[in-house]
């Protein structure tokens, strides 16, 4: 059992939990994830290690409530226990390497996932430009955290309520047009966002890494649920990734596969809503 030591409500749909998991905290690296099963009837689902404290033995997860499992997780309080918490899984980001100038892009909840990686990039000696995007101002997260580690910091909202009116790719495109020297773009967010980031950098041939959120069951390479096509090859996101070269990923296939269970997800969601009231 893994105890929840702290909880923060970041906005209406985004929560943060600090979980006691000393063995994972001791060795996890930016870019890795954990598999969670909240209780006996729960499903296993992945969340990125958004932060960790090796001394205190804690792992932080930040997540958006999009369905049954994330809602249930968001309903836990300090002192509650998570049944299974497995990790650290996946390959770490190459965040201890010096590339030069890096543009880190977070969209929606992706900003929380980008944060530990961007911080490590910065600590390794890279110049860090960060673009933080969301649909609307209330959904922008990790604003101060990201700003504090960035050499340059931009924000975008789809509706113009904060920062640049537009998408993260609007700012990224401008930077490229200005002829800025960019050595690496690292983007995490909704699949369409990552797809358009990769499109934006393709012509300028800027190396682009994305973190894929395919559906997972075990998270250790045993089922193939998470398979993605990268450069025409079948890869398992949980063991070969989750980070891949954005110019080689088949995003359309990933989007189709993410929709595989929409009907069942709706059933679970409705069941949750009818049992707990509220929420969609």
């Amino acid at each position, binding site marked *: 059992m893994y105890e929840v030591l702290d909880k923060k409500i970041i906005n209406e749909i985004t929560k943060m939990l600090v979980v006691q998991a000393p063995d*994972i905290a001791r060795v996890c690296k930016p870019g890795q994830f954990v598999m969670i099963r909240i209780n006996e009837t729960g499903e296993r689902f992945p969340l990125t290690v958004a932060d960790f404290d090796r001394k205190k033995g804690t792992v932080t997860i930040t997540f958006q409530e999009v369905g049954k499992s994330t809602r249930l997780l968001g309903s836990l309080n300090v002192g509650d226990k998570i049944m299974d918490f497995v*990790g650290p899984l996946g390959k770490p980001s190459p965040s201890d390497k010096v590339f030069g100038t890096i543009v880190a892009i977070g969209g929606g909840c992706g900003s929380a996932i980008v944060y530990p990686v961007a911080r490590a990039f910065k600590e390794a000696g890279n110049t860090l430009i960060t673009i933080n995007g969301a649909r609307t101002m209330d959904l922008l997260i990790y604003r101060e955290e990201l700003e504090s580690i960035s050499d340059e910091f931009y924000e975008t909202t789809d509706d113009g309520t904060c920062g640049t009116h537009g998408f993260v790719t609007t700012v990224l495109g401008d930077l490229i047009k200005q002829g800025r020297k960019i050595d690496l773009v690292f983007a995490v967010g909704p699949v369409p966002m990552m797809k358009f980031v990769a499109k934006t950098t393709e012509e300028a041939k800027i190396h682009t890494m994305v973190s894929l959120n395919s559906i997972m069951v075990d998270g250790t390479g045993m089922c193939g649920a998470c398979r993605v096509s990268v450069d025409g090859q079948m890869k398992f996101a949980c063991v070969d990734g989750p980070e891949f070269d954005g110019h080689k990923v088949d995003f359309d296939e990933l989007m189709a*596969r993410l*929709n*595989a269970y929409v009907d069942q997800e709706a059933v*679970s969601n409705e069941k949750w809503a009818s049992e707990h009231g509220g929420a969609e």
Partner: protein
Amino acid sequence: MTNKEKKAAPKGKGKPPTKKAAPKRKRKPPTKKIPMPEQDAKKRSHNFDEVALGYTAKQAKAEAAKCIQCRNPKCISGCPVEVDIKGFVLLVAEGKFMEAAAMIKETNSLPAICGRVCPQETQCEATCIYGIRNEPIAIGRLERFVSDYARLHGEPLPELPDKIGKKIAVIGAGPAGLTCAGDLTNMGYDVTIYEAFHKPGGVLIYGIPEFRLPKDVVMAEVEFLEKLGVEIKYNHVIGKIRTISELMEEDGFNSVFIGSGAGAPNFMRIAGMNLINVFSANEFLTRVNLMKAYKFPEYDTPVKVGKRIAIIGGGNVAMDAARTSLRLGAEAMIVYRRAREQLPARLEEVHHAEEEGVDFNFLVNPIEVLGDEKGSVIGMKCIRMELGEPDDSGRRRPVPIEGSEFDLDVDMVIVAIGNSPNPIIPESTPGLKISRWGTIEINEETGMTDVSGVFAGGDIVTGAATVISAMGAGKRAARGIHDFLNK
């Protein structure tokens, strides 16, 4: 396979030849195994309860009484872990069921499981001397009976020797790891098992379905080991949370056994493998067995169930996926590129699958999975095969018949063409010798890898094989570890 064919032949012919040497005594007609009660095929194809119900005490005694107690029994050497079959069968005949169970447990720590899933027809029963003229003694059914009997009547714990004061880490709680851990504990070692999943058993829990191997049976065997003092740490993926060298250098383990299995699913190199409704058998079975998706939405994990499901492959895994599909309400068809005689699955599973209504397509190979614009499966293009020259394994190689392509009308595909070793441990353990197939190479005699003090066995060494061979490997390694630490 060949054993099976040989065995089947005389049975059908009826009377043995009587011309030569006038018979001194009248020969009885060949006997058959006492049938084991089963759930009705129609009924069971809609539930997940166990199919075979097991012998009653009376049936077990009658079956055991047929054993002729050979002076040079062949059954024992047919068993990969050399259970004293002759001995335990005699005890069954005498009604001494607890003693019989204890005798099996001396060499086989998971008998209730083996009695259910071992391919007896190619092992102990294939070599049974009584079986030359008759159907062999139903050794598997007897093993199952006595271990179930012992479980229900409360097995006493064996006496353990004094603790040696040395620590062993076992990676993986599958049959190989559990057996190795049990044997080492019986020798007095302190054993900790590290298991990646949240439940023990490996394939026994996440792969083999409830209707063939009830999970209570597996859990009881594991609890028995825990009572002996084996500690199991779940949610520990070794290579990620801890490496093998850290276990030995920092955590004070004197030796490590790797029993991590061959869990990584293979897919075919044909178009359409990443369509939404194409699954590995591992994913499909894990969702249903480990995560209990058949109870969705009471359990949160969903599973997809098509109307017509093609299952590619002909082994136990394919049979399990097909029979699980049926139980979830689908039509299930096996698509196998070789002929019926070459099916690698246990004979009993093939019979059961047929009885339950699984449709078999032999000498058919998929060449493309067809999808619609949303990425869902709408059919599978296949080609018919014929048997050509024998290949390296001696089996006649299937070759495509030109121009025989046709489309199979299915809306879901399950791929059950085999599993490969998971790369996490090989990648995180420098010094291990890894074969072309990703398996770990060991010294056959001792079970030790190229890294001193690190042993391995089971599917991670052999590639996907059987429960009993994994157990045999776990036993050998336990002996190897003991010898290594007492050099």
